[in-house]
């Protein structure tokens, strides 16, 4: 095929997930991805086909590696999930992309099953939303880590 693939695809997808989670779909250009992923532009197109192809790969990876393995944690009191890409995708991209909408809906059903129902899921997502707003620039408790279960709070 004559196509070069001199990069780690999984690492690139992981990095893309982080970029898309922070800046949403339209806020990310191919220039941004080429710079942040350290991937040649033609290789990016060769492997993923398009920006959307990379986005879908990033979202699926996020769901399989960040969301599903941690569903058991959702019932812990005060738990805040680190599911930024999933939730940004729900708010941002699902309206325009039926494949994203389908994946997000399916995962939210799994979250419902893990939490015990939609009401509990809503509480969980509400905590995530507050946490995301509070952990922006300049906030005193900026936590970029994975899943958080605050302790010592009322």
């Amino acid at each position: 095929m004559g196509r070069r693939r001199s990069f780690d695809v999984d690492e690139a997808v992981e990095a893309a997930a982080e970029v898309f989670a922070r800046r949403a779909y339209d806020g990310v250009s191919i220039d941004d991805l080429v710079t942040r992923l350290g991937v040649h532009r033609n290789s990016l197109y060769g492997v993923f086909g398009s920006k959307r192809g990379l986005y879908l790969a990033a979202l699926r990876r996020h769901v399989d590696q960040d969301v599903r393995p941690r569903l058991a944690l959702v019932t812990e009191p005060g738990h805040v999930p680190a599911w930024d890409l999933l939730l940004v995708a729900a708010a941002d991209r699902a309206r325009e992309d039926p494949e994203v909408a389908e994946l997000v809906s399916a995962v939210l059903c799994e979250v419902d099953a893990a939490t015990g129902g939609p009401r509990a899921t809503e509480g969980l997502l509400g905590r995530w939303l507050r946490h995301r707003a509070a952990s922006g620039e300049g906030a005193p408790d900026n936590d970029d880590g994975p899943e958080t279960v605050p302790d010592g709070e009322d």
Partner: protein
Amino acid sequence: MAVISVQDQDLVVEMEGLDKLWALKSRLTIPLAHVRGATADPGIAGEPKGLRAPGTHLPGVITAGTFHQDGEKVFWAVRDGQKAVVVELADERYTRLVVEVDDPREVVAMVEQAMRR
């Protein structure tokens, strides 16, 4: 400028005006099954184009025609890079098309929708 449309099961790319002359091609017809995706990508205009054969390349003015790079064959028809759309292909003479369109966002949405049908 190129006009991209979906006709039955094909993606049709038609060059307009003098771009037919510069690109030495007036129309490309690609089965939708061979389209891997479309992306609005203004930054691609600044990338190396590879070897031109045949076509027209006046840096900063126009890139049109067939270009070879890293074993890939790419069709270009771009004057204004801000309106460049990249269409990635499979099992075609060209690995990808880089063409200028009037409304990149609209064209990308149309191609993505057609691919889902």
